[in-house]
């Protein structure tokens, strides 16, 4: 693929702040709001060889090993969780299978102090933020509506009503801006969610206020059975330009490219240049959820074409080509096995609270209806141990 070092300006709306371009970021800067970009930005080809941009920017092998490790563990979580769902231990599971590079590549480019607003499929992100398996699984076991404390992990609870979190993230970013903090906010959403009014309001709002937020879209080509072509005519990274948001288009199955683009965009956002949108082109290798049957709406050919672009295989090839020893892989396998056992054990240890707690958590201040109804409830049932 060819990468021009010339920033494309045709679609850049008037008023988009010009960025002081440093030599090393020329290539990435050029990828902003490029309506001609049909091929997303790559650093590593599917066969594991660096692209020209990869050669130019250089491959960080240490980072590559870290991302590879993150991805292998995330996929293991998916395998275990799906098995647990099939055994009746979880009500539902939404797989992030195939999207690991988009998730770990992006989250590793943020600081731990940057607040994350996920959608619901970002288990790999959650793992990178050290959220325990039990906390990730809790919601899908039907034990609680959320699994972790956002104040500890700096990851907001999942949002299942599509796209709503993008406005929350925008407001949070407005707060960051008001306080003059150098934090950045990132929100994850899907190609389908991008059709929601909320999401487009968020783009506009963030651009109008020049807010420190990164909109990260995992375009996994499908929204349940609905293909991206039904959602939109203009690619999202191009749409961004119309809002005055810096748009980037990256190969979402190339963890290093995702990391590089996110790092670049984030630095720009952190320096006060206004919001950015990253469209990571990826694929949902599994069904929408454990209750979905993707055979009803997509072809085996499409699936196998994307299986060939598996993000984990790609990085493994790169690492092996670069001479990373067998040790990394065998150690990782052992770690993944230990982790898998932990996932199974933690899942079974999740016990939900009693309904009585919901009476306590619905309002911050005492409420007469909560008081009277919880006593009615407790007259009917013994409170179960949480």
């Amino acid at each position, binding site marked *: 693929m060819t990468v021009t070092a010339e920033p494309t300006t045709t679609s850049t709306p008037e008023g988009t702040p010009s960025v002081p371009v440093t030599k090393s970021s020329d290539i990435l800067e050029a990828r902003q709001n490029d309506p001609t970009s049909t091929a997303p930005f790559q650093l590593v080809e599917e066969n594991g060889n660096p692209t020209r941009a990869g050669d130019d920017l250089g491959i960080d092998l240490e980072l590559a090993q870290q991302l590879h490790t993150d991805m292998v563990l995330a996929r293991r979580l998916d395998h275990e969780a799906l098995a647990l769902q099939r055994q009746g231990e979880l009500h539902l599971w939404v797989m992030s299978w195939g999207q690991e590079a988009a998730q770990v590549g992006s989250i590793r480019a943020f600081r731990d102090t940057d607040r994350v607003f996920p959608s619901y499929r970002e288990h790999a992100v959650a793992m990178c933020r050290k959220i325990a398996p039990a906390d990730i699984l809790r919601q899908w076991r039907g034990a609680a509506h959320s699994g972790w404390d956002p104040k500890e992990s700096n990851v907001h609870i999942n949002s299942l*009503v599509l796209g709503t979190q993008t406005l929350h993230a925008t407001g949070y970013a407005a707060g960051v801006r008001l306080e003059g903090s150098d934090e950045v906010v990132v929100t994850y959403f899907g190609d389908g969610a991008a059709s929601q009014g909320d999401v487009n309001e968020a783009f506009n709002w963030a651009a109008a206020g020049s807010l420190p937020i990164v909109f990260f879209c995992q375009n996994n080509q499908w929204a349940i059975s609905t293909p991206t072509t039904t959602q939109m005519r203009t690619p999202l990274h191009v749409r961004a330009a119309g809002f005055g948001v810096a748009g980037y288009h990256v190969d979402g199955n190339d963890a290093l490219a995702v990391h590089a683009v996110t790092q670049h965009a984030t630095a720009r956002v952190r320096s006060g240049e206004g919001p950015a949108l990253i469209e990571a082109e990826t694929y949902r290798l599994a069904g929408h959820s454990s209750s979905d049957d993707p055979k009803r709406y997509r072809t085996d050919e499409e699936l196998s074409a994307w299986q060939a672009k598996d993000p984990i295989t790609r990085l493994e090839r790169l690492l092996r080509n670069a001479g990373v020893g067998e040790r990394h892989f065998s150690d990782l396998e052992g770690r993944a096995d230990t982790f898998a056992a932990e996932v199974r054990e933690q899942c079974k240890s999740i016990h939900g609270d009693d309904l009585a707690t919901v009476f306590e958590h619905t309002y911050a201040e005492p409420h007469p209806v909560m008081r009277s109804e919880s006593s009615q409830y407790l007259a009917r049932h013994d409170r179960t141990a949480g």
Partner: protein
Amino acid sequence: MGTKYALGAAINAGLRAAMTRDEKVIVMGEDIATLGGVFRVTDGLADDFGTDRVIDTPLAESGIVGTAIGLALRGYRPVCEIQFDGFVYPAFDQIVSQLAKMRARSQGRLSLPIVIRIPVGGGIGAVEHHSESNEAYFAHTAGLRVVSCSNPDDAFHMIQQAIQSDDPVVFYEPKRRYWDKAEVSDEPSRSLHEAAVLREGTDCTLVAHGPTVTTALDAAAAAHEDGFSVGVVDLRTISPLDAPTLRKVAAQSHRVVVVHEASTFLGIGAEIAATVTEECFYELEAPVLRVGAYNLPYPPAHMEDRFLPNVDRIIEAVDASLNY
């Protein structure tokens, strides 16, 4: 027909009949064409009627209802599917301020014959936003009709009657009863806005709708074992309410207990209690009682059995009514 249909399949058959009868009927929503909907209610419609009339929309509920309004203004009769009850709220403005009010705002010049189908209620162990009972929001809005089917026969006929209505209709489908099977008759036994007395009672009458009708019937059967004559009314129509039928059963049994899955505070039960009290005050032996979910956000799945009204809680209310 005489054949047995699952409730979901009966709606499918009803949609099919309506689409065959009137080519202006179109069906639109998320994942309804290729997939046939997440509950398969629209299964096969795209094959039979084409994707011009069975439309997979972009993922935007406000868009679904808003564009349905435009299509209706152009002479179509759109049937919108909202994938789950908890996802109707992005369309709230389009339903409450636009759909409901267009006719009055245009001095009766513009009608919007739109049906909004919503799978409703809990009991399927779902994650959050997939188990809500939100009929009261829409029933509170003048300009909308709100109906709730509880069995395959009604589902088949009511969906067609709703589509034939020149007013907008919010059509609730009890998702945990989608697979319940029963016989479907050729002709509807009543009009859309009539309640059905499913069981006569002289001691007390249970008034339920949608998913709780079966629960109410079970409770009435249990009460019968204990020697009480408890009737059951399937409301079917929430707005307008069938006040004559409510009056009739109140006069007959002197005690009324309303059962629904929605929270009781400002729920439909409150309106029924007020209506019955205002119109049948001297017939009543006890205040109208309500059995509903607690006034909480719908809880996580593992708590839902304790959250939803069940036979025990209905019997508890019947006892309270009888002992009043």
